[in-house]
């Protein structure tokens, strides 16, 4: 089995490495100290399992995982993160609370050998994690080979596009593989409203709403962009805007 260790503390990496070496047939392909390096290494080596810290510089463990296309099995290693612990409790994936013992580590490894591949669990976990407040104020996307962190305040609107969602900001648009419903649930409901089956708009940019046909409206954003509003979307908008 091939693994990658991702943790921003060298000593935390070394203890995982030390424990791993006692288990036969495991190879450490890379150790990475932040999410960017981790993402690169995962795409390059395609490991079976990763050990992933949550709190890391620039992008956290959850955000990194969202960007990985073929998700490996994951064992989270974290010191203290109540959101994470809540998320884990709802799912079958294992996590190690630092500092952890060799015995606890072995139990996690046994679980992994039974569960690979377990990407379904990872998806559910990420959905849980996305609902946590700390995850709501930014969206991490891939822009070619680069990673871009978009603060949600900069988002103009989101547009459904097959399996992807197109995130429109001043500089252009970025694709993210996620469902509209997930964005609708995780974004701040006071700021973002799903005004149409295919659109979620930033209500702070609305300059006008016009009647288009019977029961359908057109909303104009401060950027000049015009988007359709459905009947139910109009009811939601009225509530948020207080009209």
């Amino acid at each position, binding site marked *: 089995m091939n693994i990658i260790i991702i943790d921003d503390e060298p000593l935390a990496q070394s203890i995982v490495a030390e424990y791993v070496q006692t288990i036969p047939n495991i190879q450490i392909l890379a150790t990475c100290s932040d999410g960017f390096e981790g993402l690169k290494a995962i795409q390059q080596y395609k490991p079976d399992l990763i050990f992933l810290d949550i709190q890391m510089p620039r992008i956290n463990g959850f955000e990194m995982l969202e960007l990985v296309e073929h998700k490996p099995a994951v064992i989270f290693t974290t010191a203290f993160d109540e959101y994470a612990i809540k998320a884990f409790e709802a799912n079958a994936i294992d996590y190690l609370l630092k500092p952890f013992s060799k015995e606890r580590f072995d139990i996690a490894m046994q679980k992994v050998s039974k569960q690979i591949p377990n990407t379904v669990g990872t998806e559910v976990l990420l959905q849980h994690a996305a609902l946590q407040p700390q995850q709501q104020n930014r969206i991490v996307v891939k822009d070619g080979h680069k990673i871009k*962190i978009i603060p949600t305040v900069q988002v103009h609107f989101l547009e459904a596009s097959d399996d992807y969602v197109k995130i429109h900001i001043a500089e252009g648009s970025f694709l993210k593989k996620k469902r509209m419903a997930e964005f609708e649930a995780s974004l701040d409901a006071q700021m973002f409203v799903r005004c149409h089956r295919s659109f979620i708009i930033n209500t702070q940019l609305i300059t006008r709403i016009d009647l288009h046909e019977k029961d359908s409206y057109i909303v104009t954003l401060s950027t000049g962009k015009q988007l359709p509003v459905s009947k139910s979307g109009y009811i939601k908008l009225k509530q948020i805007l207080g009209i």
Partner: protein
Amino acid sequence: MSSITGDKNFRYVFICCTIVWIGIRGLILYNISGDAAPAFIDAAISSILIFSTCFLLVNNMQYYLPKTKKLGYILVLSCLVGIINFAIQPLLLQLILSNTNYNIWQLPSMRYIRFIESFMISACIGFWALLWYVKKDQEALMSHQSETEQLAKDAELFMLRQQLQPHFLFNSLNSISALTGSQPDKARHMIQQLSDFLRSTLKKEEKRWHTLQDELYTIQLYLDIEKVRFGHRLQTEIEIPESCTQLFLPALLLQPLVENAIKHGLYSLTGNVLIHIAAAAVSNELHISVSNPFSADEQQVSQGTGFGLSSIQRRLFLLCGRHDLVSTTQHESIFTVKIIIPQIHEYYNY
């Protein structure tokens, strides 16, 4: 609520007044009538009746005192005491003294004198009790206020201390766990540092103001531990002139600032991170600045100054009564917090 009738001093004075009043009244009646025994019996019966009705009045005040018009309430009750005495005293005297020659109590003018006498005594005692209750109320209010203030301050201190601690503690323990296998000596050293650090933060609860030197000792331990965790990535520069080391600052005020710098610098950036701490003595103030690099991503996301800074501002305001003691600047990618601590002497022994 405590009652005035349960107060030892009050009872003592009350009984003395009764006895003195019996004496005075007895002498006056004796002078008029020339008959000692019945004069004093009359005085005793009347006075005891007056004072015991007054006692009932005052005792009743512990159960009910109107919120407004307290004086009127007492005057009305005193009138009632007067009327009771006006009506009952002659009846009692009739029972006891009817077989003697002593008869001045039967004079019509005496009945009015009884009313006025008991009204005035009752009013005096009533006002006295009123003052006592008002004073007690105020004392209770004052102690409640200072207690709530104290509680609020303690709670804030507690909150501050809790910031970041669990995360820091468990990660440090994890580092120690890693070191025990490969470098036991270093592990032991780090346990020592961590213990010293925890002890010094715990000890600080008792005293509220410390010298900068004391605070720096704790901060140095904290930074040393972070250096073990993050290795060469963390660099620190501490510039404290000799003249500042003995100046005072509130306990654990600088600590959260340094923790913030670590959080936004070391925890949020990749690569090497320099944390700079400097102090200066300016007239009667201690100026301290803490700076750290920050990530551009983060600046856009969390625009506020966050919990840490606002609570430091709040604490300094509670202690010094000034709003201008915390300021922040951003220069290129360096974030600097500057705090000013007035050296107010009365706080030294707080």
